[in-house]
């Protein structure tokens, strides 16, 4: 079997902390086991078709210090199989099902080799990510019902909700098995919005890939845009000036701010406390207008460019102070209401063990006592001394609420220290040079959690493959776990406290 799949090997510039292992499928499980045992997490699994042989890339990350190990496994195109890592890692089982649907790569020994991404009515044997895939053939409804587990027992009934909801929400179907008002089991059926984003990247110039990356999930324009940028810069070995890193950090934190503020308000709204929500929404609008002045776009698009960052102005200290004060008011309103606190406390608990096993990320992980933060583990700019991610141990709605509140405060203090550093407002992007085929990965702590992109480029600087992992992909399964023994009317609150992305999940 050919061992030089990637002619660039480590990719020029892929320096400290980057390892690429070319393994056979027989060696995969052993390597994965030892990597996971040494504290790495499986951050990304991407299959690759053209150019070259069919292969799968496993990206294991750990930090600090930032360490990334890529395991490349080449497959036999006639009979593409990989040994399943499901027994070692739950995230692996999800990635494998995704590959199975999109590439037709069969995970051998997978405990649940069922479709994940593509619903039943997508034709069998048609794999949209294969390079020779025809245009989408006609959908065929084989009329086979989705195999929801039917909970049996006295008084158990089902509540189907969605995929179309009453609010302005993306589509998702939730099937509750309920006794009285208590949820016995909840199955979330997502994947109603498959857009083929990863395929759209293929063949694009790296600069044009940026536009797409910023639109993977509308509320995470910076998270995804920057992760893509970092990956491209690693692949093209572009040296990004430190000043650009600072400007980018400003954008990441601004994105965290407006989303967390909205979430804090929305959680209050879900328990009928509209007053706090109205205040939070006013503050969100204030932040969006600030965003527009900083980048020219309310959702911060266009601020990050390949090789640099382009800002129009920085937030001022007065603005940050004012935002902090107004946020404090919202939080005081919520925490001052006994009813609101009672609704949050002890609702939808996600224990630390479950969180760890499922591999949840971001706010949800930190609220369950898992201190995972790419700002510390994979920093692209040095965080100020003493910065530590906010966290809580309770794992309930209140913990997720508190972590969000604390993160807003932390973001504001990060921003304060960032805007105090002198420097240019704009660091213009570098022209990526054609340095042969190469690859790179980018990890950014977006507001939901770690966003991971891995790109491969051909010699002409065109994208041959972009694999995107939104934290929602890994965190969604935890929602069902947290809901056990929660009551039905608390579901919207629990769901809001997770606030996972549908668009980022279903690429």
């Amino acid at each position, binding site marked *: 079997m050919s061992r030089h799949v990637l002619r660039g090997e480590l990719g020029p510039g892929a320096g400290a902390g980057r390892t690429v292992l070319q393994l056979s499928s027989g060696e995969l499980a052993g390597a994965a086991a030892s990597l996971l045992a040494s504290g790495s997490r499986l951050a990304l699994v991407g299959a690759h078709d053209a150019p070259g042989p069919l292969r799968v890339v496993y990206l294991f990350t750990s930090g600090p210090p930032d360490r990334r190990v890529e395991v490349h496994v080449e497959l036999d195109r006639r009979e593409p199989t990989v040994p399943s890592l499901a027994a070692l890692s739950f995230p692996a089982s999800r990635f494998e099902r995704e590959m199975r649907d999109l590439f037709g790569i069969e995970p051998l020994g997978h405990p649940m080799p069922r479709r994940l991404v593509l619903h039943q009515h997508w034709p069998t044997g048609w794999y949209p990510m294969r390079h020779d895939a025809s245009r989408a053939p006609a959908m065929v409804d084989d009329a086979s019902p989705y195999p929801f587990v039917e909970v049996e027992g006295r008084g158990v009934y089902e509540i189907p909700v969605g995929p179309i909801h009453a609010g302005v929400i993306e589509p998702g179907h939730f099937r509750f098995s309920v006794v009285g*008002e208590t949820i016995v089991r909840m199955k979330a059926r997502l994947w109603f919005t498959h857009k083929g984003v990863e395929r759209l990247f293929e063949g694009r110039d790296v600069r044009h890939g940026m536009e797409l990356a910023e639109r993977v999930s509308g509320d995470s324009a910076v998270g995804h845009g920057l992760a893509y940028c970092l990956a491209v810069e690693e692949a093209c070995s572009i040296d990004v000036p430190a000043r650009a890193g600072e400007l980018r950090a400003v954008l990441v934190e601004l994105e965290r701010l407006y989303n967390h503020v909205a979430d804090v308000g929305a959680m209050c709204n879900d328990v009928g406390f509209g007053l706090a929500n109205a205040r939070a929404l006013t503050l969100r609008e204030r932040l969006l207008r600030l965003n527009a002045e900083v980048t020219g776009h309310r959702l911060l698009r266009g601020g990050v460019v390949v090789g640099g960052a382009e800002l129009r102005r920085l937030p001022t200290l007065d603005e940050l102070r004012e935002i902090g004060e107004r946020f404090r008011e919202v939080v005081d309103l919520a925490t001052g209401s006994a009813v609101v606190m*009672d609704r949050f406390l002890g609702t939808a608990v996600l224990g630390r063990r479950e969180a760890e096993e499922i591999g949840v990320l971001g706010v949800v992980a930190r609220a369950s006592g898992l201190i995972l933060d790419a700002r510390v583990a994979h920093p692209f700019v040095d965080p100020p001394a003493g910065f530590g991610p906010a966290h809580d141990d309770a794992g309930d709605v209140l913990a997720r609420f508190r972590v969000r509140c604390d993160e807003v405060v932390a973001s504001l203090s990060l921003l304060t220290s960032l805007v105090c550093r002198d420097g240019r407002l704009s660091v213009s992007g570098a022209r990526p040079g054609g340095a042969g085929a190469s690859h790179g990965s980018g990890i950014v702590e977006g507001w939901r959690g770690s966003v991971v992109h891995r790109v491969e480029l051909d010699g002409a600087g065109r994208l041959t493959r972009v694999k995107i992992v939104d934290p929602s992909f890994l965190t969604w399964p935890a929602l069902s776990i947290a809901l056990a023994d929660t009551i039905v*009317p608390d*579901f919207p609150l629990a769901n809001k406290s997770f606030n996972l992305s549908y668009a980022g999940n279903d690429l």
Partner: protein
Amino acid sequence: MTAPPGVAGAILVVCAQILVAGIGGPLLLGLMRKTRSRLEGRVGPPVRQPLLDVRKLLAKQRIRPQCGSWLFAAGPLVLISTSVVVAGTAPLLTTRPPLGQSTDFFGVVFVLLLGSVFLALAALDTGTPFGGMGASRATTIGALTEPALLVAVLALSIPAHTSNLPALVREGLSDPQVIASPGRILALAAFVVVVLAESGRLPVDNPSTHLELTMIHEAMVLEHSGPDLALVTVGESMRLALLLGLLVNLSVPWGMATGSGMASLVVGTVALVAKVALAGIAIATFEVFTAKLRLFRLPELLAGAFVLALLGVVTALVSR
């Protein structure tokens, strides 16, 4: 006793009461929404928005579930009918409603309950999970509020030796000390909680949510559309206005028409509208500063109302 009004006068009073409740109900809803909006720092829809919504709904197509039976159609009709019956017979504008010589407080409670029951049946009739869920929750809450309400009525009627509603109102008007009596205050406090629960206001239910799974009341009427929904909207807002009207007339009856003259009827109307509007604003203000209780905490709240009412009964019996 003044002379009983003539037939024309009687019809006028009855129609005036129904009209005031029918138009005032939706306006009350609008006023409460406006109050909430303003207090939350929003502009909010105009006060007459619910009336405009009703007009829009009446012009829309009526869609009923194919699997529904006559119960589904009957729900809104019974609801609006019960509201109209109570509006026509209760002492709202005048202490001597022409059709209300024998309007019994217990009777009013049961007539209003009939509307709730039919609404729940109509919700069950659709066979949708939300209808069933809403009906189940509403019935559970109803089963907890009704005892509190009945005991509160009992507490109110003990000092007067009658549960005749006009008589209870007249008693308060003639002898304000009755209103200030501890038994009556306790009973009216219980009545306030019951009004909040019965009309689906915070902290029991969130009338402005779009989250189906948290709904109690709204979940029951999700399947109604067009004119059916218009009837539900009017019927329910009338019920809220009626409950508040009874509450204010039992606690601050001043301004009500005692005779049959046109002038006193106008004064009575103005007084009622002002009092109910104030009560609505007060409830909306309270709603701004509270949140929705966890569903399983509701029994505690409603048990509290029951205890208040029971204390009202005890106090009334002791202080006889």
